[in-house]
């Protein structure tokens, strides 16, 4: 199968050092934060690939690299065979840019309060000199708002309606791929279900491909076809949805599932996971998860596990079987 998005050994390092004068006076070394480290995965057309992980796992950084908001430090993201970071043919770059759009987490921060809704929605097309006649009205109806809303300003809408406007804007340039970075985290459950249903419908009607970034396992389980679990910038496990949820291989994935609050677990007494995500500037040697891992052995402290396949699962753990 030919992948629509193909990510290879993607790495992104941020320089979080103090200013040089402080470094000289306090004799500090440069501090480099590896947000994403050697991540590889493929996303086939018209599928939903979800990235899950806790804060600091690098999931949002991957999304930003994918749409070209942040350049990678190493590795590549190829969309339709074009690598946005290195491609020199401007026409190809433009074509891919049209095909990929993004929906952000906070619908209160991602809409310009001084722009009218129709201007916001038409901007991805208008910026390239495209025709926008009636486009905003058509898209508003497609996402479940009314065409009469086109003349309003963002503050006149609730959170869920704003997220619909964000979706309409993302659809304006008729993309094939939408990167959704925590699209429902800021919404209430009853509104979240409206937005998730809308996204499922649009995927079927328009043949969209989603890269779905979330920390909420129940939402991911509902939406995704394939799920990649990130820990400290590395992909630790990747599997089709049912397989991941029925038979998680990596101890971290198992820990996440055990820790997630469940609605059918009344008065459940759990032994909560130990420890916290380590410092990404000085990650532990070997497997980054070993300080919290119940299965950790000497080998885990020295040797970093490589990704290997077990059936349809890919997992980076010495002990997974």
């Amino acid at each position, binding site marked *: 199968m030919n992948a629509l998005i193909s990510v290879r050994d993607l790495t992104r390092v941020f320089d979080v050092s103090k200013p040089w004068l402080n470094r000289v006076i306090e004799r500090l070394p440069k501090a480099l934060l590896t947000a994403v480290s050697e991540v590889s995965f493929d996303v086939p057309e018209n599928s939903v690939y979800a990235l899950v992980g*806790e804060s600091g796992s690098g999931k949002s950084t991957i999304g930003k690299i994918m749409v070209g908001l942040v350049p990678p430090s190493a590795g590549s993201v190829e969309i339709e065979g074009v690598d946005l970071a290195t491609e020199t043919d401007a026409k190809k770059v433009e074509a891919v840019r049209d095909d990929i759009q993004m929906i952000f987490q906070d619908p209160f921060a991602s809409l310009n309060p001084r722009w009218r809704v129709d201007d916001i929605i038409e901007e991805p097309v208008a910026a390239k000199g495209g025709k926008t006649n009636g486009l905003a009205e058509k898209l508003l109806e497609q996402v479940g708002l009314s065409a009469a809303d086109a003349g309003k300003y963002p503050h006149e809408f609730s959170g869920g309606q704003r997220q619909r406007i964000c979706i309409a804007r993302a659809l304006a340039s008729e993309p094939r791929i939408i990167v959704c970075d925590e699209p429902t985290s800021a919404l209430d459950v009853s509104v979240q279900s*409206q937005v*998730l249903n809308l996204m499922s419908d649009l995927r079927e009607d328009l043949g969209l491909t989603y890269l779905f970034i979330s920390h909420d396992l129940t*939402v991911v389980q509902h939406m995704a076809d394939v799920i990649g679990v990130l820990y400290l910038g590395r992909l630790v496990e990747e599997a089709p949805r049912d397989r991941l949820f029925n038979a998680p291989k990596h101890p971290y994935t198992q820990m*996440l599932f055990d*820790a997630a*609050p469940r*609605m059918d677990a009344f*008065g459940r007494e759990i032994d*909560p996971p130990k420890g916290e995500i380590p410092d990404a500037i000085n990650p532990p040697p070997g497997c980054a998860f070993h300080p919290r891992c119940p299965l950790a052995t000497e080998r885990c402290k020295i040797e970093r596990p490589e990704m290997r396949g077990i059936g349809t699962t890919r997992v980076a753990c010495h002990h997974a079987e």
Partner: protein
Amino acid sequence: MTDTPVLSVRDLVVEIPTRHGVLRPVDTVSYDIHAGEILGVVGESGAGKSMAGNAVIGLLDRPARIVSGEVLLSGQPIHNLKGDAIRRLRGKKMGMIFQDPLTSLNPLLTVGDQLTETILEHLSVGQTEARKRAIAALEEVGIPAAAQRINSYPHEFSGGMRQRVVIALALCAEPDLVIADEPTTALDVSIQAQIVALLKRLCRDRGVAVMLVTHDMGVIAEAADRVAVMYAGRLAELGPVREVLTNAHHPYTAGLMASTPLASQGRKRLRQIPGSMPRLGALPSGCAFHPRCEFAQEKCRAEPGPTLDRCDGRAACWFPLTDERKVSA
């Protein structure tokens, strides 16, 4: 369980006068919390759940004020206390845990200073004893090497550890009641599980009454003994957590449960509650939920909003869902 509940809220009404009329973010709300019990308060944003918590502890920002109803702490009315009187209770009898641990700690004081200050203020102990108790409080909430960490500043702690410090701060004067307002919302799943387990353990070991305000049904299911569901400032449903979540009587609770993605459901379409929570300035007549309710009838529109005691005692609904009329999800 003793006979007098630790906290008893009776017909509490909070109003905010504005230029466009008087808003009622909390409208005729009544509930009890007994010692050693966790009452979960759920609802979507704007339901009034935080406002209800703040009203109990006397932290309403002006111009919001309690206009009627009572708040009884171990039988003593506290809703009419002012200034110093309520300040003495706050911390001593009632602890508060806020959502964002970074903004509820003073960044310029060490954790130890903040803890000893609270202990000295409320308990009659000396400096040395206060410090000893502060270290014990930090140990109790699971902060490793508490004797050293007590001299650290809040920014030197991680998010989960900071929330532990806030919990230690809320508990160090040995209160009877703790109000936890979205205590885990800013935290990661694994840390959230640690904090929920900690709250449950403290509640059980110390017999503290806990009011756990959150929007996360999963957290409620795991932690709470009873749950109060709020909608547009009113109690929609109140009952034992298992019964309310598995056999909801109020259509809103039922809709809320059905719209949450569940592990067992697979890829089915999620049920939707149409529309969104009404704004306080534009509440519909009658039952505030009726425009979104699939069972709404003439009575729901015409008569003033149903309350728990005028309906079946569990759900504030004229037509509570019985087994035959269950939502066909």
